[in-house]
């Protein structure tokens, strides 16, 4: 009945063995709570970023307003969301929406700058070849902006994995609950296993998602490989 594991940091393996099902469930919800906002955020940021690039006068206001969003403390945003969205307070959608806000705040500028980084002569050549504006965007600008956008996605993803953990204080199950469990049981001396396990899994998840983005960016930009392999 008693948990087999001790309370030292390295007993995290024993803790994991004892709570396998529960921990995997938390890991899974942590994963989609971090990834979904990045996907939605990118879809929202692409058109806004494009607008900011297309109409230069719109760049400063768009970038400042979206940048402002990034300074709102996450706990406050999580708690305010139900009022804004009309959702139930325990709805994971609140967390997804809040993190989407941060992701958009980060990516709008990245998308705009990424598009801006496409060399002018390339654009002129493409235009001369008769590409329409939409073709230009799809076939030239976006592909060439992939490295910059991917770099932005990496930052957003890694930040999200860390931010999701804060939602444990408002009852959304994810890895952050392991911190709270460990914290509560640290009264007759430190109880490391759940805390350390939570941190290890968060870091592993962040690094894994980071690698995935790097790999997909490589796949999307074959010309870069030639340069790097040189």
């Amino acid at each position: 009945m008693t948990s087999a594991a001790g309370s030292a940091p390295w007993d995290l393996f024993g803790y994991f063995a004892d709570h396998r099902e529960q921990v995997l469930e938390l890991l899974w919800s942590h994963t989609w709570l971090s990834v979904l906002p990045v996907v939605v955020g990118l879809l929202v940021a692409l058109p806004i970023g494009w607008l900011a690039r297309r109409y230069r006068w719109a760049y400063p206001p768009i970038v400042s307003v979206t940048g402002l969003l990034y300074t709102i403390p996450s706990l406050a945003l999580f708690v305010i969301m139900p009022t804004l969205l009309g959702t139930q307070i325990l709805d994971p959608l609140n967390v997804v929406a809040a993190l989407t806000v941060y992701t958009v705040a980060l990516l709008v500028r990245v998308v705009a700058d990424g598009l801006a980084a496409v060399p002018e002569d390339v654009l002129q050549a493409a235009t001369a070849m008769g590409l329409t504006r939409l073709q230009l965007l799809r076939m030239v600008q976006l592909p060439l902006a992939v490295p910059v956008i991917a770099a932005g996605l990496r930052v957003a993803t890694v930040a999200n994995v860390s931010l999701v953990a804060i939602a444990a204080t408002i009852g959304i199950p994810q890895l952050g609950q392991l911190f709270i469990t460990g914290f509560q049981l640290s009264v007759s001396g430190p109880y490391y296993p759940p805390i350390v396990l939570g941190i290890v899994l968060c870091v592993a998840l962040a690094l894994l998602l980071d690698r995935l983005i790097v790999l997909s960016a490589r796949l999307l930009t074959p010309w870069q490989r030639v340069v790097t392999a040189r």
Partner: protein
Amino acid sequence: MNEVLVWLNDPQNWTGTRSTPGIGDQVAAHLAYTAVALLIAGGIAFPLGLVLGHTGRASWLVSVANGLRSLPTVGLLILLYVMVSPLVSGRGDAVYLVPTEIALVVLALPAILANTYAGVRNVSPAVRDAAFGMGMTGRQVLFRVELPNALPLVFSGVRSAALQVIATATIAAYVGLDGLGRYVYDGLASRQFGEMAGGAVLVAVLALLVDLLLALVQRVTVSRGVSGRFSRRAAGGDGRTARITELAAADPDDLSPAAGDPAATDPVPVPEGSGGRSTG
């Protein structure tokens, strides 16, 4: 929204009462936590970034520091508190301050280190060679050529770190300290929506003001020859993009070959340049 305005308009919240600190005190406490964390992080990351960038050695350290970004701050804070708590007895804030500051330093460190490193690495080899050719010593090249050229990126890193630390210093209140987070946590605990959201608004405003201040310092410090700011237009580059581009630029084994081999290509814009260009 109305509740927020009511709360922000109540003079008593600003002056505080004999028993509760006012907003001014909490802002000061919030800034103090931030300043201490930034000073420590800067004190470690800035010289380290300069040396690593100048020598081009041990770039894996930058990758390791970038890995720190994936540490969940709440988890780290709880872990540190649980570790420190049995060691500290007696009154005072030390048992809460130490874990909070370490967590904030860990948050600020990667941005400053990566940007300083990338800033120095990204100095054009031609410029560096010219400096050596003029007979400058290694130290002179670092301080007279590489550092001034790296400054825009260094500032981007510091500004991005400052933004993150100010927004995150809210968690100090989670372990019983002061700062603007007090309003967020107290408002939540006593169901005062206006207080909670008001606290959040104050954090955002504070972050903006500090960013503005640092932007001014940057404008004064960075040589025009580097920023290319010959007109009235402000040199762009702000913390947030910096975080992205710096990551792309500074992670030696990744997307951008820029850091490892500055001569290779420049597919990822250096924030200062790109920011400036696209504003114009």
